[in-house]
């Protein structure tokens, strides 16, 4: 169970997080949260995810699909405080995100959505979304706009 940091005699439970979809992004997020002292369980359909998590991985791992309720139960969804959903499918992510939020009442759910239009639609409906495509578009625009171009002779 949770690591016991103590404060004024009370035992505080570590924040418990689920990371669903453990590709390059999910695995790095999972490791980052463990580094912060969180109690993290990763979920992925492929055991290859364990390779990405690395031999030093100290969190939990459940093999299976994030929409499968038995998988979520084994991953400890009942007492989870926060979840990051980053499988390779936008639609899978928004559906899992809504299930975690609405059925399991997880207070903090963040979902990766590549398509900016769908990301906007679901964020307007109260799902916290992160859109790497939109970030890339903004950063590329900023970068190219602020590039110093030498005036050239006509």
């Amino acid at each position, binding site marked *: 169970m949770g690591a016991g940091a103590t404060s004024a005699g009370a035992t505080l439970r570590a924040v418990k997080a689920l990371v669903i979809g453990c590709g390059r992004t999910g695995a790095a997020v999972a490791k980052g949260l463990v580094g912060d002292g969180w109690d993290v369980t990763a979920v992925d359909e492929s055991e290859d995810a364990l390779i990405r998590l690395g031999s030093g991985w100290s969190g939990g791992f459940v093999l299976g699909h994030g*929409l499968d309720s038995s998988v979520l139960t084994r991953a400890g969804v009942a007492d989870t405080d926060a979840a990051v959903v980053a499988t390779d*499918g936008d*639609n899978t992510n*928004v559906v899992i995100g*809504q299930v975690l939020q*609405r059925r399991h009442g997880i207070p903090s759910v963040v979902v990766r959505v590549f398509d900016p239009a769908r990301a906007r639609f679901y964020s307007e409906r109260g799902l916290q979304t992160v859109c790497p495509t939109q970030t890339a578009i903004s950063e590329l625009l900023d970068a190219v706009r602020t590039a110093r171009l030498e005036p050239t002779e006509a």
Partner: protein
Amino acid sequence: MYVIVAGGGKVGANSTRSLLEMGHEVTMIEQRAERFVRLEQEFGPIVVRGDATEINVLEVAGIARPPELLLSVTGDDEDNLVISQLGREKYGVPKVIARVNDPRNQPHFDLLDIPMTVCPTSSILGLVEHEIPEHGLVQLLELQREGLEIVEAQIESNSPAAGNRAGGLKLPEGARLISVFRHGRTELVEAGTVIRPGDQLLAVVADGSAQDLRRALLGASKS
């Protein structure tokens, strides 16, 4: 009526064919290149190529008119859920019917307020139960909005209900017997109707009380 059919597999293509025969206006969306070519050969320009979960593809198909009916019938349940949510909530499509490929995903459709779903697997299993009723009680229809189920029960000689008057049976709250089918005829059930072995009873029961009704009519589970 204007209908958008998202997904041009067997379900989508056959639905489109029937809707066109009924005189409706249909636009179909299909993503797979080979499948798209075949559909376009049959249906012509009403087929749009693209991912029906993308808003601009839905808009090319006329989702903003909006259609009176949207069928989300791709082979992927998450896609069908997202198409249904976009149609209902972003464009106000009045009727959305979604296909559930994996019956284990049915609760997700319920949770996300997609009320009209069709699950071929569940339908086939329902038919299996109807034809081979080893459980004694068969669900014929689920009225989700009303929270009711219509069920059929086959009364056997050892069923607790056999030989009793309908009015004397202790049924779960919210359950009513509707009719009894015997000797090729259907009669409405009244308080004085005596239930007999061989009867096929139709009953309405509140969602979740079907097992209690089964116990009251048929006794402990046989399975």
